[in-house]
């Protein structure tokens, strides 16, 4: 039961982290760096965005759930289960970020989910 919660934690925190970071980085906008002043301006704009810290906190929570799950179960159980996060991310991108996900992108995402599952499952 604990392992199920941890895997759910990896998927949910990871997906929210990606969604929040994507939303935040698009709001920050132009990140092109041509000189040292641009670099400081970019770092400054990213560092004051609350979404950046929420996103990184979610990624950190996903990472620690992963470490805890790996200390309890095999990679061949944990990694295939987390391949579901590709699907969850695309659903979130479509409905929360309003991205245009066409049929080709959906088919590709499902194939990658299956591929990641096959890559890590134990036979």
């Amino acid at each position, binding site marked *: 039961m604990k392992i199920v919660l941890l895997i759910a934690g990896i998927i949910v925190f990871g997906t929210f982290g990606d969604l929040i970071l994507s939303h935040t980085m698009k709001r920050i906008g132009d990140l092109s760096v041509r000189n040292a002043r641009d670099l400081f301006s970019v770092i400054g704009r990213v560092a004051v965005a609350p979404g950046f810290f929420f996103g990184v906190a979610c990624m950190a929570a996903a990472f620690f759930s992963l470490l805890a799950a790996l200390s309890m179960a095999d990679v061949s159980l944990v990694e295939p289960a987390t391949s579901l996060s590709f699907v969850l991310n695309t659903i*979130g991108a479509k409905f929360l970020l309003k*991205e245009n996900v066409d049929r*080709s*992108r959906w088919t*590709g995402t*499902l194939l*990658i989910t299956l*591929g990641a599952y*096959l890559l*890590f499952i134990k036979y």
Partner: protein
Amino acid sequence: MRLHPLVLASVATNSMGNILLTMAMKRLSPSLDTSFQARRFVEMGLTVATDPTFMSGVALLATFFVIFLTLLSKMDLSYVLPVTSVGYIITAMLAAILLGEKISGPRWAGIACIALGVYLVARSEQAVPSPAPRKTDLQAVESELSA
């Protein structure tokens, strides 16, 4: 199929970072275990922080994160995430070559599925917004002057 150069850079830094960390952790784990049992946590920190392989791995993963954020600022999440999964293939290949891990039949099937999936996502419409026309140096100077 055309992949954005930053996608390739993110995949390369991520895979190589993971490989270097794996190599470092496999080599360091006996001494880390000893320190952990003796509760010498500072010693553990020093062991990893002074290991060139470990620190190179961390530096590459940090670089990966910066590139990943840059990608997210320009492109759809539903494009960036699937496309960067080509890294699974690179990592599996590097692990086979550098760490001597075996690639079984089903894993080859997984690699094929991922390759086909990445191809489909990469050719999906509006994946990469067309780049803004580049200003020539002369035009850039002119707009600086008029501003």
